[in-house]
């Protein structure tokens, strides 16, 4: 369980995280979604006590993280890949961290095995690929068998196999009753992994709801309708306040009027329908809508600095 109240972080004039309040509950995978630079990592660092909030507070399992007697048993965190001295082996890095909590070396070997690092555990981290570094970060997170997991962009740099593995791992850990909080700037990833989603943009919480509700609640609900009397139907729909756009292959794409009402209008007007399909907007679309402002803001900021195209725009 993670509870943030009015959490704020200011870097000089820039407000990285702006008065966010949220709760991450055990037993579910909660996605933390937002464009790059939206404040995800800063929020996660504040949860871990690495960054000091400008205002507000955050507790993990009822207490500020630093006040736990056995921090690694409370929270396991992957905050950045390869945050390891390149001259140490993966196993040595894990052993040093394990020692602080009196965790037995057998547990180190266990997480090495679990994360698929057995073959490279005794090699120096300097030669690791991003994917292997990511696996090591996850091994660190699992080391203390924590009740809460915080994973910042856990699938970055992983091959498809690894992505699937992380997804299963997150779901499995949540099913065990643990709190799993994972961030991503990729919609699809959150849609596939998370039950609940917190969307952040420009440091503010834009949405905090079940993934399904985010999709359902998206303002753009389209109904595809096909009719030999398309013109008549379009008139009737416009009178009802709907927006009608000609879709491909002669179908109409209707927004603002739901499928049931389209059917009623057709029946009332004696219009023959060949197709009537409600098209749920994807999470991707819902996300784009929510974060449109945040992304625009980023693009401007980067344009000013003559920087590269923002990769904050979701694919």
């Amino acid at each position: 369980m993670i509870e943030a109240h009015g959490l704020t972080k200011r870097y000089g004039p820039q407000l990285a995280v702006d008065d966010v309040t949220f709760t991450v509950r055990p037993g579910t995978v909660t996605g933390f979604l937002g464009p790059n630079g939206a404040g995800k990592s800063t929020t996660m660092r504040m949860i871990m006590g690495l960054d000091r909030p400008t205002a507000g507070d955050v507790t993990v399992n009822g207490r500020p993280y630093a006040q736990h007697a056995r921090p690694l048993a409370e929270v396991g965190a992957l905050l950045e890949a390869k945050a390891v001295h390149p001259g140490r082996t993966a196993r040595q890095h894990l052993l040093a961290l394990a020692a602080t909590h009196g965790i037995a070396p057998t547990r180190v070997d266990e997480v090495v095995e679990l994360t698929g690092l057995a073959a490279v555990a005794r090699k120096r981290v300097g030669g690791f690929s991003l994917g292997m570094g990511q696996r090591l970060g996850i091994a660190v997170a699992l080391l203390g068998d924590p009740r809460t997991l915080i994973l910042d962009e856990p699938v970055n740099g992983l091959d498809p196999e690894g992505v699937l593995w992380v997804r299963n791992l997150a779901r499995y850990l949540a099913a065990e009753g643990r709190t799993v909080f994972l961030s991503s700037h990729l919609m699809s990833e959150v849609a596939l992994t998370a039950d609940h989603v917190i969307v952040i943009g420009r440091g503010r919480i834009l949405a905090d709801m079940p993934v399904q509700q985010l999709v359902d609640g998206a303002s753009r609900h389209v109904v595809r309708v096909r009719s030999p009397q398309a013109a008549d139907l379009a008139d009737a729909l416009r009178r009802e306040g709907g927006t009608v756009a000609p879709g491909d292959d002669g179908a109409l794409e209707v927004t603002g009027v739901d499928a049931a009402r389209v059917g009623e209008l057709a029946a009332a007007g004696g219009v023959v329908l060949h197709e009537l399909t409600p098209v749920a907007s994807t999470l991707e679309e819902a996300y784009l809508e929510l974060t449109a402002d945040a992304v625009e803001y980023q693009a401007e900021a980067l344009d000013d600095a003559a920087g590269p195209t923002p990769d904050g725009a979701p694919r």
Partner: protein
Amino acid sequence: MTTTAPARGATQAVAVQRVTFGRVLRGEWIKFRTLRSTVWTVAITAVVMVGLALMMAAIMQVAADTPEMSEGMSQDPGLQAIGLTGTTIVTFGYSFGALAVGVLATLIVTSEYSTGTVRSTFAAVPRRLPVLWAKLVVIVLTTAVVVAVALAIAYVATAPLLDRAGLSVDLSDAEQVRALAGCVLYLATVAAFALAVGTLMRHSAGAIFTVVAIFFVVPLIFSIVVQATDAAWTDWVNKLLPSVAGERVISRGAETDALLDPWVGYAVLAGYTVVLLVVAAVTLRRRDA
């Protein structure tokens, strides 16, 4: 790479103990000894200190064969005046030692920042201060042990040469024993000083530059300035410099107004070190990692 569902490991009860200082110390010790660069630096420091002592002893032995030194070097008034004794030879490599342990102590903190390890470290020990104190214990004890061993080897290895030169180390002379122990103390304190600078500055290059400037460049400049002017303040600044003050504890302790007494000098260096460590501890707790 495994793709199987995460079966065991997450479900079994894992024995996780409370974080104690002893455990943090064990973790820091593992980090210290698992870097090859660290192990090599420590080994080379010891080897060079012994080597320099041997080299100086050999030079002394050759010099002792000249007719002016026929009564033995320890009887020579000129050498007496500059405070040369057998311990001067045995501890001859202390400057190199200070450079090596200063850089090493700086790096054990700054490398954590440059590699990002510090975030894993503070995630495991979010109270942070035990990490600083554990690093302090590791670097100070390692330095003390390695320097003590190097001096012991240098003492034994140079004994035949120094005996022939009439410049034997006299362990019944309290001043000479103090100089040998002082060498261990001085280098251990330089390590603590450098650790504090590293903690405050975080960046390897800047912190190493600062340590080298404080212990090697500034004293060099002042040794020239003091010669060049009569201004009293330059004498004072010079004798209160961390290295000039601290090194007094290794010296024979010839009385002179231009320098502090051995233990007073060491106390000045120790004072700076304590102040820096306190400031480092306060900022370490406050700053974002």
